[in-house]
């Protein structure tokens, strides 16, 4: 266990830029945008007249509508963090078993009494838990700072931030939902993670090419064969990938709901296998599905092959 923790720490140290600096920069951009927004108003009229009017206008709106907007906004403000997190994890995994082969420091790591299974576990753990957790923490901090800043502005303009927006939504609920969606996404995305690690352990060079080219070639061939056979473009690898993406338990888009207005959505609400409402139950639905079971089987194959390759990585 200590060894695993040490190895996870190593992953964090090696990838500090991606795991910590990147979300900090996103948070910083959010704050900068907020400040620019305030400065813009103060620049055009010194008394903040227009901002005051805007806030008064908001305050006059229906409470129900305001809380709905706030609820959606709380969730949607995670989207940029989530998307960048997805990129970070993608490239992290792609390099995870490649970089030390390239610079040959693998020979040093292999001289330590840590098994290849433990090494692979530590890297997968960093991708599934460490990176999402850090992104989430910084997302929450950013959220708090922005709410504080906005409250101060509202207060200084003579309005009550509590009745205006603070009392209307429970930010803890949004934070909890986002964190749950990150971890369910980590499991939902396992086949992709397994594939990326496999490529990372295998690629003699340019892992990105090896990761993307085979599925694209396979998908195009499938499309073409389907087209020849049936003159339709039905189910194929691209469709599968698209469905997988749209069904993701990650909060990444919005939706109009028939009964209760609009709100954030899990994945992209164009598929109908799963409910896209942002609830914990809907996230877990995805994990306890046949799709997920098949995904786990595929992941096991990918990771098994990854281990096999990693054991032989110092062969020549």
């Amino acid at each position, binding site marked *: 266990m200590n060894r695993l923790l040490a190895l996870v720490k190593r992953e964090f140290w*090696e990838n500090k830029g991606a795991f910590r600096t990147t979300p900090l920069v996103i948070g910083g951009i959010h704050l900068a945008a907020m400040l620019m927004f305030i400065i813009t108003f103060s620049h055009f009229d010194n008394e903040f007249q227009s901002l005051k009017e805007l806030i008064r206008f908001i305050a006059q709106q229906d409470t129900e509508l305001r809380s709905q907007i706030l609820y959606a906004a709380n969730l949607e403000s995670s989207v940029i963090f989530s998307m960048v997190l997805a990129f970070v994890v993608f490239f992290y995994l792609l390099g995870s078993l490649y970089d030390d082969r390239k610079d040959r420091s693998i020979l040093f790591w292999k001289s330590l009494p840590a098994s290849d299974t433990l090494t692979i576990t530590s890297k997968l753990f960093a991708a599934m838990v460490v990176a999402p957790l850090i992104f989430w923490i910084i997302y929450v901090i950013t959220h708090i700072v922005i709410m504080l800043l906005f409250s101060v502005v509202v207060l200084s303009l003579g309005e009550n931030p509590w009745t205006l927006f603070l009392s209307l939504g429970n930010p803890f609920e949004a934070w909890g939902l986002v964190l749950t969606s990150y971890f369910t996404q980590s499991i939902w995305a396992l086949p992709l993670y397994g594939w990326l690690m496999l490529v990372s352990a295998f690629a003699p060079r340019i892992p990105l090419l090896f990761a993307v080219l085979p599925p694209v070639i396979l998908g195009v061939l499938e499309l073409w064969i389907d087209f020849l056979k049936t003159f339709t473009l039905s189910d194929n690898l691209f469709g599968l990938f698209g469905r997988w993406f749209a069904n993701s338990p990650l909060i990444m888009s919005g939706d109009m709901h028939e009964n209760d207005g609009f709100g954030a959505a899990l994945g992209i609400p164009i598929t109908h296998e799963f409910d896209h409402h942002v609830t914990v139950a809907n996230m877990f639905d995805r994990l306890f599905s046949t799709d997920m079971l098949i995904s786990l089987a595929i992941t096991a194959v990918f990771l098994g092959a990854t281990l096999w390759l990693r054991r032989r990585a110092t062969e020549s």
Partner: protein
Amino acid sequence: MNNVIEAHGLSKRYGRTVAVDNIDLQISAGKIVGLIGPNGAGKTTALKAILGLATYDGDLSVLGKSPARDRATLMEDVCFIADVAVLPRWIRVWQLLELTEKIHPKFSREKCLKYLSTTKVTLEHRVKQLSKGMVTQLHLAIVMAIDVKLLVLDEPTLGLDILYRKQFYTNLLNDYFDEQRTIVITTHQVEEVEHILSDLIFIKEGRIALDCTMDDVQEQYTELMVAPDKAATARELKPLYERVLFGRHIFLFKNANREQLKELGELHTPSVADLFVATMNGGES
């Protein structure tokens, strides 16, 4: 299991090339073995098999374990520096020490810091800021601070200046080595390790060309230096190897009658380097 390394019929092929060809090898505890061979002779390949870094054919046991299967547990008692090994470039020295300490139960931070104090390496340095020689110093400091039963050094002193090389081998002999430990060294700078070796193994084209103790070398091998007019006589005594230096003929004999040779010219104990050249160029030893 008395032998630290025991190999029977150890072979390794890469496609059609046979890198290691049916080697039998026994190395017991308390030895410092020089594994010496020309480039591409199979030294590194053999070491990789021993360290569990490559698959192989044949029987191989290191400290009673199978390196191919039990690399991780084996590494608790074995340490190595591979010839092309580099430390990860992104890491800071203190991070490296902390990781090694947490992962390796037999690592002593104090010892490592003591060795590092004789170098210019500081804890805040990143590996990529260090010169090649400093990285090697760091790597050696870590390795010497790990209390293992078998230490494998594949070209350990590459890129180090002669002062540090001498100091390293002195440390290795005085502070590190004892009866319980075994050290296997490969190097092209044979002269520097010659005096610390207890055993000698020459590898030639994937096979063992010579496997003996340093005492055997003294006992069995004799170098004879003669003037040109006695060269023909010396040649009749079937030397292993002949070379000419400053007009004098130098012959290498195995198990020769020293009294008989003495009448022809000067006798010496051959250096490992001379023995190596003779073994590689000549036939069987």
